[in-house]
């Protein structure tokens, strides 16, 4: 600088000498801070990639992702030419070092756990992003795979092209804890389902016996037709068709019970909430009818789909319906009515179940969703807790209120799939 201005150069020289000294001292402090920072940090010289990118851009290349797919060797070259220039203590610990020097070498080892991430890191670099973050795996020097958040901060011209920062956060323990929590929740939900199945056993038996009784009577009637001298083939065919349909119906019911009873990994599939509701109703229909409760269903003809676990959502609806049935029955309400409705909002579906029971006592609202809180004589107090944990895991909320005309109203929301 200031080549043609020697006097200035002198002053600048003095000044810059002092600045350089300060900067050197500053850099040293800064490096020390970085070295002891509790985040694993890599400083990377990515000029080798930057130069290649510069040439490709000059040639008019814009779609780098496709180009790298066609030239995977470029990614491999970059892994060996982009260099780690500095690492901190945490980085050494994360890769099971033993020394910083073991980590100061080409970046290839950073991608050993997720080899195809290198390409995505390059694409982001080429496209001029400031940051790139991905959930990935790393392979430590002693051969362990760890789950991490891998973040890159790129230099942007006119900053020095040799200072790309990579930070890696180990989330192995967090993911393990989350998985354990999900497993516990699933186990808890499963235990509650088994208990619910016990409550609806009579209803289920009744539900299964209907098609079985129809099969027996239709089968016997068909045999009688066959025994007559004027065999009515059309009749026998019609009866046999009904037998087959009833057998399928019985088999469907048993399959639904089996799904409720098994301990399965919760899944996320696209679901029609209307059919989930209909299946849930089959578990309690007999209970509702035999207790002389009328049921009204207010569900629009077409509803957007949701993503969720069919069995768990059935469980929520069955639990809420059982609560309503028991509330009406326990209070010996003269008016015996349950209304189940679904409304579609812009991003959520809302299911509401309202009953003509005594409603919720003001003092109970706060503890309603707590474990082991029950107002029922035989209640374990886990039904609503399970409902809430299932709904929350689905990204929705559940609320309780008393209706304007009395009675309890439970309402839960679920996000519409893909919105």
């Amino acid at each position, binding site marked *: 600088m200031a080549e043609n201005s020697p006097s200035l150069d002198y002053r600048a020289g003095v000044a810059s000498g002092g600045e350089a000294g300060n900067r050197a001292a500053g850099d040293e402090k800064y490096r020390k801070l970085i070295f002891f920072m509790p985040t694993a940090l890599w400083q990377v010289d990515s000029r080798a990639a930057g130069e290649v990118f510069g040439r490709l851009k000059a040639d008019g290349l814009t779609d780098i992702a496709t180009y790298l797919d066609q030239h995977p060797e470029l990614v491999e070259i970059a892994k060996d030419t982009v260099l780690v220039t500095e690492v901190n203590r945490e980085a050494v610990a994360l890769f099971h070092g033993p020394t910083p020097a073991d980590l100061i070498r080409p970046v290839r080892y950073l991608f050993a756990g997720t080899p195809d991430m290198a390409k995505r890191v390059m694409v982001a670099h080429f496209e001029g992003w400031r940051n790139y973050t991905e959930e990935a795996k790393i392979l430590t020097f002693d051969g362990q795979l760890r789950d991490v958040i891998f973040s890159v901060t790129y230099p942007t011209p006119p900053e020095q092209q040799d200072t790309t920062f990579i930070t890696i956060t180990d989330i192995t323990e967090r993911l393990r804890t989350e998985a354990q929590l999900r497993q516990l929740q699933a186990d808890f939900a499963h235990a509650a389902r088994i208990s619910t199945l016990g409550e609806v056993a009579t209803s289920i*038996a009744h539900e299964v*016996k209907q098609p079985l009784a129809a099969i*027996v*009577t239709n089968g016997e009637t068909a045999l009688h037709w066959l025994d007559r001298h004027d065999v009515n083939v059309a009749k026998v065919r019609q009866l046999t068709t*009904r037998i087959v349909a009833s057998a399928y119906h019985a088999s469907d019911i048993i399959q639904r019970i089996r799904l409720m009873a098994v301990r399965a990994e919760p899944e996320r599939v696209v679901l029609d909430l209307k059919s989930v509701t209909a299946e849930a109703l089959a578990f309690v229909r007999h209970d509702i009818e035999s207790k002389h409760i009328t049921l009204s269903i207010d569900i629009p003809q077409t509803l957007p789909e949701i993503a969720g676990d069919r069995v768990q959502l059935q469980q929520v609806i069955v639990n809420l319906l059982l609560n309503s049935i028991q509330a009406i029955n326990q209070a010996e309400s003269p008016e015996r009515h349950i209304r189940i409705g679904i409304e579609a909002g812009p991003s959520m579906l809302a299911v509401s179940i309202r009953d003509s029971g005594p409603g919720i006592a003001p003092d109970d609202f706060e503890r309603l969703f707590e474990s082991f809180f029950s107002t029922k004589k035989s209640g374990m107090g886990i039904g609503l807790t399970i409902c809430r944990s299932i709904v929350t895991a689905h990204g929705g909320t559940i609320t309780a209120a008393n209706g304007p005309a009395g009675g309890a109203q439970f309402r839960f929301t679920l996000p519409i799939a893909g919105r």
Partner: protein
Amino acid sequence: MREALSELFEVFSLSYRAFDRAEAFLAAFAPGRFDCLVTDLHLPGISGLELQQRLKALGATIPVIVITSSLDPNHHIRAMQEGAFAYLTKPFNDKVLINHVTAALDQAKPAHKPDDGAGS
């Protein structure tokens, strides 16, 4: 089940009428019009037990055969207390039902071609 019973009565050449609920049967009921009633306990509107009570209140003597999938002994006791002619649990043997129906018809009108109502 209603359809299945209808077919069964047909193959035994019994004339019958089927009703989808107790209320419909009561609306069609007149003394002497039907000779036997086969009903489920569990019906969409008023129950089989209530139907028995209402018929009794009307002074009807029509024999009532109750069919049900309930295994609750209290239901059985109450149906018999209300004067049920027979009580069958599902699934039942068709010959048992037909024997009961025939016996009921013999009792109702020994020398008359019978009519029976089938509920549910």
